[in-house]
């Protein structure tokens, strides 16, 4: 589904991402981990068109998407979430989702401007679809709450819901669990699993190791922009290079 080859991004002399390769097959749930500053979010930005790679190939379902704008990548079926909570703050939860599903379909400009009956029918369809997403994400209780006054956990979930409303085939989640309490984490982990069971392929960046290990079949480890390991959660746990990357090395260590 997604094929990344030799992806590199230099900021000045610094290689934020260096010769990174990754293949994601349809229906997989892959984890991308690594210490802070390893280049995980940069990779997301490169893949979704928010940054232009210095080098490398990114193929989505066989099409080269390097140089495409983020909106066109999203149209092709790859949608990402953001590490910093990103929602339409002054909209209610329902408006957030309705807006997000409004944005994605091929809006016929004049139909929308003239409120034709076919656009009205589409509006109704969007509303019922949005309500379905809200129910699926467990946000019915706060449907009419302004997004900015939601508790943190709900805001994060809303962020994912917005991405879902864009009907992705491949969903890129950037630290969906950050800042959540234990209860919210377990809820969201279940949610991610259910999204994946809907048939959406997922690439997940997450610092919460237990959650990542329990969710993903395959984990890729990044350090200083380079892939240092790839494998099943069990293999990753035992990988000495990974342990060194996380705990650091010291010449005094034995």
């Amino acid at each position, binding site marked *: 589904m997604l094929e990344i080859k030799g992806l590199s991004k230099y900021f000045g002399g610094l290689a934020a991402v260096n010769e990174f390769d990754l293949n994601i097959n349809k229906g997989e749930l892959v984890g991308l981990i690594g210490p802070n500053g390893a280049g995980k979010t940069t990779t997301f930005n490169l893949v979704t068109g928010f940054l232009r790679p210095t080098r490398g190939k990114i193929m989505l379902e066989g099409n080269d998407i390097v140089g495409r*704008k*983020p*909106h066109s990548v999203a149209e092709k079926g790859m949608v990402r979430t953001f590490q910093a909570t990103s929602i339409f703050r002054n*909209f209610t939860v329902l408006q957030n989702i309705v807006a997000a599903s409004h*944005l994605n379909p091929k*809006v016929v400009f004049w139909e*929308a401007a003239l409120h034709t009956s076919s656009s009205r029918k589409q509006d109704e369809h969007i509303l019922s679809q949005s309500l379905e997403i809200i129910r699926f994400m467990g946000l019915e209780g706060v449907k009419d709450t302004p997004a900015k006054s939601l508790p943190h956990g709900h805001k994060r979930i809303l962020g994912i819901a917005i991405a879902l409303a864009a009907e992705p085939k491949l969903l890129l989640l950037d630290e969906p669990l950050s800042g959540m309490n234990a209860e919210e984490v377990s809820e969201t982990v279940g949610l991610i699993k259910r999204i994946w069971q809907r048939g959406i392929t997922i690439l997940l960046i997450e610092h919460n190791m237990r959650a990542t290990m329990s969710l993903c079949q395959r984990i890729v480890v990044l350090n200083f922009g380079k892939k240092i390991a790839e494998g099943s959660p069990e293999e990753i746990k035992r990988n000495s290079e990974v342990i060194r990357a996380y705990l650091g090395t010291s010449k005094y260590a034995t």
Partner: protein
Amino acid sequence: MTLGAYTSALLVMKMGWPTWAALGAATAAAAVLSLLVGYPFVRLKGIYFALITAFLAEVIRLIAEQWRTVTGGSLGISNIPPPDPIVIPGLLHISFVSKVEFYYLILVLVLVTLLILYGFEHSRIGVTWFSISESDFLAESIGVNTAKFKVLAFCIGSLFAGLAGGLYSQYNSVITPSSFGFVYAVYTVIYMIVGGARRFSGPIIGAVILTFVPESARILKGYQPYIFAVVVILIIAFMPEGLVSLPERFIKIIRERRGHA
């Protein structure tokens, strides 16, 4: 506006175009210019975008001032005829010579403009614009061509500004490069902020009230701008959402009072 004013005035005076066609051309000229500069401009955000549009206005003013053979330099163009009368033989004869007649013409055009803008704002395009104003990268991430929608908004705004410029030239019969200076552009932004930028009615209320305030202080003559400035600063400081938020605030205060009583 300057571009619209000069386009229509020159087409009528030098090319002998009918006045209404010239108004249409003024509108089109502004729209075309906005499309040409739109894509590079919308790469800038917030205050930087505001600054570059102000610079563009200034560039057009300077061209009007320097290109003397065409624009008449700083003396501008005078004796611009008013719009041709609308005549339906035997039924209707509306001329636009007096101020009152002109008032009704502008009133009708303003209402039509507001209707069109209201339609846009309450369509799916409006929803998209609101989402972009909330968070443009989030909108982009879920498939909105934000650049396109920003240029569209810019173009629609420019189009009506071009029309307004054309009308002004035909109303005033004289235009000079300083007819619509930088200060004028700032005033329109102030109207919007004072009224409330987030509501459809905001800019309308802002424009109406801020036209009346200096008028009512006319006796104070030279001090008018000071009074204007004080009013604007007070409103921005105490009502950041603009005058449109006033009724809601009153209701809230009354509710709270009752709650405590």
